[in-house]
């Protein structure tokens, strides 16, 4: 079983046909997921390069490595690349694309050609973004605030805006595809209450993508028009209001945070049940919490604008609503903890990342409540406290869960196991490096270090050096999986169809799955997460 070659070359989605054309013209959701995986990994390391530059500059209080203009571009492009080209497509376009049809017993997504189109749209927009980077970059911050972005910036604002505009359609089409697939493609017996929570969370994500993304698209189109025409609705000279831009931007970009975190929660529900050998605690609550997050997430955007001159009344309402949105997230965290309670927990790599997620996401969420509080927010607005808060959610939360999912489903995607000791080492490095990077930033922000400056007061240096040191550990933690996962493609132990003895339809087909996922359409007669009938331990594959 543990030989280096697959015992008999079964027909699967990888060996069904060969050649570059069979990949570039594929409509198989699994191959498109792999295409996305490769492209977003490339963008992740481009974004990581800018993060490295930022942390290097901040080693010393003086702005000695680059000019302030260059530094502006570094953090802008770090944000734009990571948010729009890595985090938003990350889990949905790779794991979601790969798994959702299999989890519901379908042959493919509802619109396979639109799925491929979404990848091409992504590639065009990513190509434009790379061109922007090589052409001198953009310096507005990822938020494109007017009037700086429309009137004053001399960088490639328009191209970057158009790239994000185009990229939005890739996101919309993925969301549209998932919604239709989950409504219309479920196998016989796969009712909504038997749906894996992975699918519920992705459904909520898709709703946000479909409702939110068009708004950022039209907003950035207006910014682009304003740069060409030199007149527009955000232009104070003609009676326009720059704060309207902030409203329209955050109407998408706050829910966009939930586009990043809901798929992470999707992964969590699968990993935690499997490695605790238990049914999820409170299935209905976890499922509906996803929907609640999607709905409430649209009602809190102005908490990014407490100091932007919105009325006190609006600020109070948005502050209160921001507290409400923490409730469904907390429900999920409590339910995962309750799932683990008295579970038969095993600590393989995916579960280590899951533990990291729960701890870091909780801290990120709690500090989010600080920021929703009208008393504290003005004190820490635009400081490193905010930077630390959203990195706890986006990196400590979303990226941790992404890595958990990649490790958990790697045997399904490739047919081979990753090397477990290396996996555990990388998970430990990521956790340690992450905390060393971002915990000091909470302190820095609280004592008053503003974000987006390339030079700072000398008393902040110790904490900044700690942060940069942590970032280098984090970088090693991210490079390791890249190396050993590629290594495992050839040398990893053969995984078998269900190496974790996990529930879920995706584990009932072969690894790697055949092109149409199942030899015959499955009929579902069981509830989700019936771990009572599964082995009491997670098997060890080596």
């Amino acid at each position, binding site marked *: 079983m543990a030989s280096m070659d697959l015992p008999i070359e079964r027909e699967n989605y990888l060996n069904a046909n060969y050649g570059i054309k069979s990949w570039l013209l594929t409509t198989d959701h699994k191959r498109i997921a792999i295409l996305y995986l490769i492209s977003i990994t490339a963008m992740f390391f481009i974004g990581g390069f800018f993060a490295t530059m930022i942390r290097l500059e901040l080693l010393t209080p003086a702005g000695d490595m680059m000019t302030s203009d260059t530094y502006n571009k570094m953090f802008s492009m770090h944000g734009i690349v990571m948010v729009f080209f890595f985090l938003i497509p990350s889990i949905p376009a790779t794991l979601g694309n790969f798994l959702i049809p299999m989890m519901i017993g*379908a*042959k*493919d*997504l*509802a*619109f*396979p050609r*639109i799925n491929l189109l979404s990848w091409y749209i992504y590639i065009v927009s990513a190509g434009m973004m790379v061109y922007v980077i090589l052409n001198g970059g953009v310096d507005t911050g990822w938020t494109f605030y007017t009037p700086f972005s429309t009137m004053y910036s001399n960088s490639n604002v328009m191209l970057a805006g158009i790239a994000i505009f185009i990229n939005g359609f890739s996101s*919309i089409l993925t969301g*549209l*595809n998932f*919604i*239709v697939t989950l*409504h*219309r*493609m479920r196998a016989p017996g796969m009712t909504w209450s038997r749906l894996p929570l992975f699918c519920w969370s992705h459904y909520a994500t898709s709703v946000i993508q*479909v*409702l*939110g*993304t*068009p*708004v950022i*698209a*039209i*907003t950035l189109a*207006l910014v682009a*028009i304003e740069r060409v*025409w*030199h*007149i*527009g*609705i955000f232009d104070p*000279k*003609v*009676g*326009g*209001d720059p704060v*309207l831009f902030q409203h*329209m931007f955050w109407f998408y970009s706050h829910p966009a945070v939930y586009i990043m975190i809901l798929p992470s929660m999707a992964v969590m529900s699968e990993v935690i049940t499997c490695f605790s050998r238990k049914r999820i605690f409170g299935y209905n609550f976890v499922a509906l919490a996803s929907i609640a997050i999607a709905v409430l997430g649209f009602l809190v955007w102005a908490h990014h604008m407490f100091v932007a001159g919105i009325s006190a009344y609006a600020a109070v309402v948005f502050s209160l609503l921001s507290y409400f949105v923490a409730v469904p997230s907390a429900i999920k965290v409590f339910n995962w903890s309750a799932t683990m309670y008295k579970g038969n927990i095993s600590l393989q790599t995916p579960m280590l990342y899951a533990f990291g997620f729960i701890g870091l996401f909780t801290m990120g969420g709690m500090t989010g409540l600080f920021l929703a509080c009208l008393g504290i927010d003005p004190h820490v607005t635009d400081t490193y406290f905010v930077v630390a808060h959203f990195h706890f959610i986006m990196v400590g939360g979303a990226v941790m869960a992404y890595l958990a999912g990649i490790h958990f489903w790697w045997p399904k995607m490739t047919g081979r196991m990753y090397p477990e000791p290396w996996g555990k080492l990388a998970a430990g490095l990521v956790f340690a490096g992450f905390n060393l990077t971002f915990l000091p930033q909470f302190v820095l922000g609280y004592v008053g270090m503003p974000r987006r400056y390339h030079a700072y007061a000398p008393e902040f240096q110790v904490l900044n050096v700690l942060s940069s040191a942590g970032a280098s550990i984090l970088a090693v933690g991210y490079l390791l999986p890249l190396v050993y996962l590629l290594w495992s493609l050839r040398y990893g132990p053969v995984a078998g169809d269900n190496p974790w003895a996990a529930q879920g339809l995706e584990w009932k087909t072969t690894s790697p799955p055949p092109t*149409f996922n199942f030899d015959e*359409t499955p009929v579902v007669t069981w509830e989700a997460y019936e771990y009572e009938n599964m082995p009491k331990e997670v098997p060890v594959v080596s």
Partner: protein
Amino acid sequence: MSASTTEAVAQHALRHHFATMEQQRESTTLGMWIFLVTEIMFFGGLFTAYLVYRTAYPDVWEYCSRHHMEFKLGTLNTVILLCSSLTVALSVHAIQMGQKKLTAILLFVTVLMGLGFLGIKSIEYHNHYVEGSVPGPWWHMEIERPDGTHYPAPHQYQLFFYLYFVMTGLHALHVTIGVVALAIIALWSWQGKYTREYHNPVHITGLYWHFVDLVWIFLFPLLYLIAGK
């Protein structure tokens, strides 16, 4: 056409990953509805901006609508679009009855009306250009005093026309896409590609056209009728 042939046509139109024609039809219809929801949000950003500035500058909005919007051309365009929605609805009914040529003719008439709408719209745009109410470098709008003298319109007047051009321009882009799509569907319908059993492309393109029509139903009163003519 015999029953077995129509079945074969239907089988050919069924894509591999769907189990039944019904599942395929419901999926594509739902897909189009969700796409239309994204379109509503897309236009929604502009309608929000419109609302904000109309509330901020009600006098400007009233003045521009009263003196610079061509009420008659707008009304004519509204009638044209409403009629085109009727012909699309009739074409969907016709293909459900299996009348392929009639479907193609009705769709073709819709295309003509769409082109007519775009023609009238471009006449209006040209008139705005001549009178100097295109914002940006082309702007030289003047306002008449009661004594007959003129003074340059304040900057806020550009906001109205900026929103007018962006909103109707985006709508015209959608009309153009719709005209192209309907022309292709009309051609394929003439060639007999759609049948009583398989006609979903006609149906969902029709849905899209109704949406384009509906956006105009909101744009027309918001831009042309504020002054209460």
